[in-house]
């Protein structure tokens, strides 16, 4: 391994950014991939790059499927779930996701919503979603869910999330609400990226109570993490 690449790898893990190191065993050529930017001398096909990304998201290391000589080492931090909106559903989703192994952060600029009384033990960020997401440095093992029901809060969060390698982006709201949302994002020049948004959010488990919706969201996040889109 080249020292320069090693330094980049160590810097990424120290900064809490999930990265994969790809090695061609035949000649030792290597590259780093954070799910977005590819750095290094080793080049692979688009399909192989997508497969590396799936392994990184799932924190899996091993030989790339179908390859005799490409080895992938995922250096992934614990998966994160960023919940935008300190809503009723969030009060169930935050502790459930924490139990399932996610580092959970709830973002809401409205003090009355993001209170420690409503979210005991949960990391709360009282700030506008786009600013908060910028600070959190979303990476390939991050999931973002918007639950505010308010485009003024949800849209900036989605725009920030779409600019990141986050493995999952979900937005609460009906199919009709989502169609309007996609129209607004298209106006903002993000029409081609909006397909990444899972909406209506969550697996269709049938339940409509906030705690049940929380389960369906968490289930979908886990499914996408391991099974891909």
């Amino acid at each position, binding site marked *: 391994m080249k020292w320069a690449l090693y330094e980049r790898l*160590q810097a990424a*893990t120290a900064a809490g950014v999930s990265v994969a190191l790809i090695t061609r065993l035949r000649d030792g050529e290597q590259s780093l991939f954070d799910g977005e930017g590819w750095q290094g001398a080793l080049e692979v096909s688009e399909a192989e790059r997508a497969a590396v990304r799936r392994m990184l998201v799932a924190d899996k*290391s091993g*030989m790339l499927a179908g390859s005799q000589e490409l080895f992938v080492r995922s250096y992934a*931090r614990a998966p994160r779930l960023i919940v935008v909106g300190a809503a009723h559903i969030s009060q169930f989703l935050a502790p459930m996701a924490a139990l399932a192994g996610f580092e959970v952060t709830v973002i809401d600029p409205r003090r009355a919503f993001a209170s420690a009384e409503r979210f005991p033990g949960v990391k709360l960020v009282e700030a506008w979603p786009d600013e908060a997401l910028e600070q959190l440095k979303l990476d390939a093992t991050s999931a973002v869910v918007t639950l505010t029901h308010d485009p003024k809060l949800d849209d900036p969060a989605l725009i920030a999330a779409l600019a990141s390698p986050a493995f999952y982006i979900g937005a609460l709201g009906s199919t009709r609400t989502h169609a309007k949302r996609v129209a607004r994002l298209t106006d903002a020049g993000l029409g081609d990226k909006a397909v990444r948004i899972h909406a209506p959010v969550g697996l269709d488990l049938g339940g409509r109570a906030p705690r049940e919706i929380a389960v369906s969201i968490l289930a979908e996040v886990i499914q996408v993490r391991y099974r891909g889109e």
Partner: protein
Amino acid sequence: MTTDAEEIFPCIRRWKESGRGVAIATVVQTWGSSPRPEGSHLAVNDGGEFVGSVSGGCIEGAVVTEALAVIADGKLRTLEFGVSDEQAWEVGLACGGRVRVFVERLE
């Protein structure tokens, strides 16, 4: 997975910055029951000191020996240990699995 990186990365940096030769061994493939998963690292310096683990103990000695050769000549090596391999009995991979270990020099 980050935990074992946290353990070995600072050590590798210290060795490198003090001018030591360093090799990194990585489990790239496993078959059957193997004590350490794919991606496990063992880092070795030119004095034979090592950190990390590729097997939980049973093949470390052999890997360190090969790693010293890699530090000396800079050539990559891919090692295999397992019950189907003669060497496995010598090094004693008692767990019944088979592992493939890639060893590279830090340049």
